[in-house]
């Protein structure tokens, strides 16, 4: 008896393979990080230098920012002695403004006479860098180096404010980072983070009582 030869189907079913691939893709998607974390570079003053030298700030150009609990921010311009009559509450851009407060961003921009100039340098640089896309790496690095020099010079020229950031213990890390961000946004070249002293704490407490 002759058996009938069945015609073999040459097509292979790929569905299980696709299933497996899908699983692998999902696994790698969940287990890998594509982006490196962002960072903010800061340089703190050493504590070996004399206390006097460190806090020597031209009081006329000083802007002191006090970070308080519950994401509240206060600032005053000028000498700590006149702080009581100068102190105002402001708000962070990320926070919800209540009442007729100004934003910290607005205040710092106004206090910085070099803001417009530095901003122009930055936008010019970005335009130049975009135009230089695809050109040699060396050429782009030269543009960047030139920008940094000009930008830093503009940011710290005479008359620009010196910002003193004084966070209270009850403020959060997020508040500090947001304040440091404002320094970048408002093109402020000179700023320091110092612990709050008793006089400032007293001024702050008294001011809050009047609100």
């Amino acid at each position: 008896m002759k058996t009938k030869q069945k015609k073999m189907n040459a097509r292979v079913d790929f569905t299980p393979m696709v299933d497996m691939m899908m699983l692998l893709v999902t696994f790698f998607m969940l287990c890998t990080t594509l982006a490196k974390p962002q960072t903010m570079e800061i340089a703190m003053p050493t504590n070996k230098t004399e206390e006097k030298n460190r806090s020597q700030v031209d009081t006329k150009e000083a802007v002191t920012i006090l970070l308080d609990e519950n994401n509240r921010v206060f600032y005053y311009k000028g000498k700590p002695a006149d702080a009581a009559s100068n102190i105002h509450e402001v708000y962070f851009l990320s926070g919800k403004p209540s009442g007729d407060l100004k934003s910290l961003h607005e205040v710092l921009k106004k206090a910085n006479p070099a803001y417009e100039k530095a901003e122009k340098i930055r936008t010019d640089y970005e335009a130049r860098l975009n135009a230089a896309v695809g050109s040699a790496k060396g050429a782009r690095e030269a543009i960047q180096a030139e920008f940094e020099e000009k930008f830093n010079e503009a940011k710290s020229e005479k008359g620009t404010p010196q910002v003193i950031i004084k966070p209270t213990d009850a403020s959060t890390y997020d508040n500090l980072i947001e304040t440091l961000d404002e320094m970048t946004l408002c093109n402020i070249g000179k700023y320091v983070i110092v612990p709050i002293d008793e006089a400032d704490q007293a001024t702050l407490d008294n001011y809050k009582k009047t609100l």
Partner: protein
Amino acid sequence: MGRFKIKKADLFIDMTPMSDVMLLLLTFFLMAGTFTKPEPVQVQAPGSISDIKIPSTDILTIYVSTPKGGNVAAVPDIYLTLDNAPIVNQLAGGIKKLPLCGKIKQEDIDEFKKSQSIKVSIGEMVADRGSQDDATTDSQFKQIIKQVRTIYNDINKKAKGDNPDATERNLRIAIKSDKNTPYSTIKLVMNSLQDIQENRYNLLTELKSRPTE
């Protein structure tokens, strides 16, 4: 005129193109990704407009956790994580000999070798800040960071001896802290770093876009 014959539809779908695409995706993720290292604590870093990328090697990360529920009075945990396994092993071998570090349990050292993270005592850091500036009372936190710095200096010195043009391996210190960590804790970490002359460091953040005017 003849009638059109209705063709019987083939229910068999060809999966080959799909398989091709999947393979491409798989290759992409394999090549482009790096495995996420397990972090000692879950930390939600604050957003910042700063877009500087941190290099991926030779980083000592200081993790500062937030107490559960944003309780300011509770004590947060501080972990030190080093991303370089040979240096972790070298450090773990000598850690007991450092002053004040004799108290560290053997299990913790074994865990350090395995996970590359070590928890340091925060109470000691507070006590150390209150005492005189004296190297013998330095907290575990300071001791370990100083030791890591010494190891890196030795490596660089040795590399320079072998080949004067060798590129230096630069240890960077990064702080990864939670959004809601109270400033008092950050201050403790920053002041402790300042005491041991580590004045340049990175604050790790999530990318946030510039606010539009």
